[in-house]
């Protein structure tokens, strides 16, 4: 795709040397599309996971709801990307049934044990670094910020890593977020003005997983684009 565009730009340059404005215009358009540093998918391509086990997130913030709010917004984008996603609250329940009460403990279960009991192909570890509403002088901003790391259950190799981030300022009107997702937020805000983190978390996860340059590759249940 990007190569094709480059060829056409070259042709355009040849054909329209005098029309610098057009070239500039085209270049501005292209900027958002062409990948500067291609993401290295070699480990993910070699592993070809079918299923993903999401471990309840480590929470580095004081917001106690962060962990489970995040957990309620991660299954859908992963599954819609084509992976089998282990049911997050069932998994949480199984951990607790086995005496692991905190996400910190759940995050320290060895991969071979997870493989033995649940047999996922890959495990998603999440660390929440920032969450919730920040009050400034005249406005407030809601933030969701989490690191995620997908690991091969057999080898421990990192298959994919990314940062899910979204924020929304009061009075922003959703302008900082793109298209249809912004509409979803507006809808949510009308419904519950208090807590924006569920929708922000959903937006952050959907965007990072579907990012055209560094998102997760399609899994087996999603036919190739």
């Amino acid at each position, binding site marked *: *795709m990007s190569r*094709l*565009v480059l060829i*056409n730009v070259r042709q*355009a340059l040849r*054909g*329209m040397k*005098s*029309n610098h404005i*057009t070239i500039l*215009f*085209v270049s501005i*358009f*292209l900027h*958002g*599309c062409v990948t500067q540093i291609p993401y290295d998918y070699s480990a993910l391509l070699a592993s070809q996971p*079918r*299923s993903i086990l999401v471990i309840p997130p480590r929470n580095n913030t004081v917001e106690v*709801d962060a962990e*489970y*709010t995040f*957990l*309620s*917004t991660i*299954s*859908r984008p992963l*599954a*819609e990307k*084509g992976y*089998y*996603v*282990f*049911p*997050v*609250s*069932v998994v949480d*329940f*199984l951990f607790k049934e086995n005496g692991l009460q905190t996400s910190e403990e759940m995050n320290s279960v060895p991969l071979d044990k997870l493989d033995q*009991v*649940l*047999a*996922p*192909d890959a495990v998603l570890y999440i660390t929440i670094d920032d969450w919730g509403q920040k009050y400034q002088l005249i406005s407030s901003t809601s933030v969701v910020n989490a690191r995620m790391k997908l690991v091969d259950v057999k080898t421990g190799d990192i298959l994919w890593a990314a940062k899910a981030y979204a924020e929304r300022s009061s009075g922003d009107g959703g302008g900082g977020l793109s298209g249809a997702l912004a509409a979803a937020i507006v809808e949510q805000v009308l419904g519950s003005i208090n807590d924006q983190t*569920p929708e922000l978390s959903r937006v952050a996860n959907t965007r990072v997983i*579907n*990012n*055209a340059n560094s*998102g997760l590759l399609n899994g087996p*249940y*999603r036919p190739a*684009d």
Partner: protein
Amino acid sequence: MGVVKGEYFKAYSMIIFVCVGMVGCVPQSSSLYYWGGYERLIYTMYKQPGSADAVTQIQVLTADIQRAAGTGKPVAPGVYAHLGMMYASQGDVDKAVNALNMEKQLYPESTVMIDGMIGRVKKRITGAANE
């Protein structure tokens, strides 16, 4: 003058061409599954556990499963397993096992987890009944 017009035409077709090409960059995909209230339920059961007891959760999930059939889309991964967990929490072994088996049938990736769950549900509940 005609030459200039031609150049403008070329320029505009070029822009249109690039814009059409750009469409490929935006991730657009239709939904694979019917999701219903599953994720909302997960949120509620942790945030307001009182308003998501097992009976309520079973109602939401079974209604979603019926609605999914109407849309022609499969039930999302995890829905049947979650439903099975709720039936198990009520001590309803048959319904729990049925729901868990549905998850396995739809998504064979869940086999090891589901077999383990079914084993434990049967052992726990029938074991308790024999005491």
